[in-house]
């Protein structure tokens, strides 16, 4: 009876008024709460308890409330530091490199409008994946938080120039690049004054040429022209022999050590280049390793002037194409495409899609590219919209718990009592 009385009192007594601050969770009726705030603010301050970032529309409303004078703060309940950026790869076959920032230990599920694509395990700040197609937006889900980025801008691919001597490496490197879709201009020396030429390899200009691949040491004049091209913004790929060209040695990311023989005889699918001998690269200060083998750098890159220079330690990759497994020709093509893409000059022709957080608007979620920012880097967006979160030690109001209305509970209890009473009367029980 006491319980019944308490319940009845609870159902009839007026609700307590919020005192100064009201809290709401993301996903816990935020839209309705904002509707109520718009009609009649129940408290002075709205505190958002966020474990994920609200969708762009709600975030915009929160920002609008804030600008309208309502104190809106938020408490960081573990919003994952997640962002996504897409960049087009300089590869005729297309492809997009997806860079996803996510906390270690989480799982990234990559998808596009046509379905899931892959799952990544982030390490050291995130993970990247090379996607074969990049014509549509890409979504990455990290726990409950999703980030999205639209298709990146398209690239205008120039020609490649391959310089070297007639030989298997030059033949099969050109073949791989052409089969990949590159337009290759080439000059291959056969004898003094006699060269096999394709296209117009002499015209080294970023208006026409994306990168120069130097497979053998060049005469001094040619080396100087190639160096000038690289410094002016062009890409440069150096083989071990090519890096020995005096004019290019200064641009090379590394010095070469003595040649190391192949680690294995057979080309394994997982690590085919272990079956190639290579010249280990000793990096210069500003160079970055791109590929390592047994603790030694096999490919490296650095910026030289406005251009990019990639040096590879392999001199006979053709053996991989010819002697590898069934996938070897395709893998050889893909590897050379990656080498060239890492150096190639990449002029953008399309409009910016705003996928990169750093380029997307001024952080205002309402204007400009703010919506894109909110989708691509939601944590950054909530900082932009609501400012820094409340300090961790600050008191936060407890959000209202969902509960059964006390009137309804009292009714149920009353009905049960009546049933019990009726039952006793019918049975003649006391």
């Amino acid at each position: 009876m006491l319980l019944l009385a308490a319940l009845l009192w609870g159902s009839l007594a007026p609700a307590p008024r919020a005192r100064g601050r009201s809290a709401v969770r993301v996903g816990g009726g935020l839209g309705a709460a904002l509707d109520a705030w718009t009609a009649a603010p129940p408290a002075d301050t709205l505190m958002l308890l966020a474990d994920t970032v609200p969708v762009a529309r709600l975030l915009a409303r929160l920002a609008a409330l804030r600008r309208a004078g309502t104190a809106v703060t938020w408490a960081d309940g573990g919003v994952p530091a997640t962002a996504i950026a897409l960049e087009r790869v300089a590869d005729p076959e297309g492809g997009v490199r997806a860079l996803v920032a996510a906390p270690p230990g989480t799982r990234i599920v990559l998808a596009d409008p046509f379905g899931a694509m892959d799952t990544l395990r982030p390490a050291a700040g995130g993970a990247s994946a090379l996607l074969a197609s990049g014509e549509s937006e890409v979504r990455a889900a990290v726990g409950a938080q999703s980030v999205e980025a639209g298709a990146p801008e398209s690239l205008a691919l120039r020609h490649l120039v391959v310089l070297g001597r007639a030989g298997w490496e030059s033949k099969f490197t050109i073949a791989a690049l052409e089969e990949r879709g590159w337009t290759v201009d080439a000059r291959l020396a056969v004898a003094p004054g006699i060269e096999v030429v394709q296209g117009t390899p002499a015209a080294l200009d970023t208006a026409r040429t994306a990168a120069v691949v130097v497979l053998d040491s060049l005469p001094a004049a040619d080396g100087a022209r190639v160096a000038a091209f690289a410094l002016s913004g062009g890409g440069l790929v150096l083989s071990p022999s090519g890096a020995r060209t005096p004019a290019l040695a200064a641009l090379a990311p590394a010095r070469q050590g003595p040649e190391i023989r192949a680690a294995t005889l057979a080309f394994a699918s997982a690590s085919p280049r272990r079956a190639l001998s290579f010249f280990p690269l000793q990096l210069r200060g500003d160079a970055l390793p791109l590929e390592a083998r047994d603790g030694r750098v096999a490919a490296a890159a650095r910026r030289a002037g406005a251009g990019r220079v990639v040096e590879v330690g392999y001199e006979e990759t053709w053996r991989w194409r010819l002697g590898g497994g069934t996938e070897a020709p395709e893998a050889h093509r893909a590897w050379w495409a990656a080498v060239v893409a890492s150096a190639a000059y990449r002029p953008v022709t399309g409009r910016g899609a705003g996928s990169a957080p750093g380029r997307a608007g001024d952080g205002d979620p309402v204007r400009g590219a703010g919506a894109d920012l909110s989708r691509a880097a939601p944590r950054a967006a909530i900082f932009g919209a609501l400012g820094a979160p409340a300090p961790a030690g600050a008191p936060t109001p407890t959000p209202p718990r969902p509960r059964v209305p006390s009137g309804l509970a009292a009714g149920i209890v009353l009905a049960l009592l009546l049933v019990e009473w009726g039952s006793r009367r019918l049975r003649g029980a006391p």
Partner: protein
Amino acid sequence: MSGFVFATAQYESGDWDSAPLVPANIIDTIARYTQLEVMPTGVAVPLGSAELFRYPFVFLTGHLPVRLNETERANLRTFASRGGLLFVDDHNHDVDGAFHRTCTEEITRTVGPLVDLPNDHPLYSAFFRFENGPPTTTHELNGWGDNLVHKHLLAVLRDGRISVLYSNKDYSSEWGYHPESKRLYSVDNTRFAVNVIVYALTR
């Protein structure tokens, strides 16, 4: 770079080593006219071994029937599909001979159909210019073999590029002499080999 190695195909059937002086002669020719890196001796490479894929240019000759086994066929198919060039010469110089019939059958079955290579194909201008197509050999002129002077070489083409070059001209005999004897010729009759090698290395 290890340079060009002249490889002679070693197959299970037939006399694959019927032209033992050709490799040295061609190596001499390559060095004599080009600055290509070239190994001073040739090698014999079994068609049925994975070693084949270390030599993107392979020379095959003989008199006897050429019957490849399945391993040799599979290797040759892969070799051609990956860009290797097989240069076959009929040492019999005889289109009705057993070598020609069996070898062309094997090539057709394994790599693809052999077609007449037009005499203005880039092969004939890859280094020296041969206006009239493949140079005629003394064996043809003297009526040896099938009494024919063959106007064309045959080839299996992939996207316009030669995968298999087939000759009935008996270059194996024509070039089968010690390279030191080359100075006795007013015109070096092995110059066409330079075109074949340069073509293989650059196309």
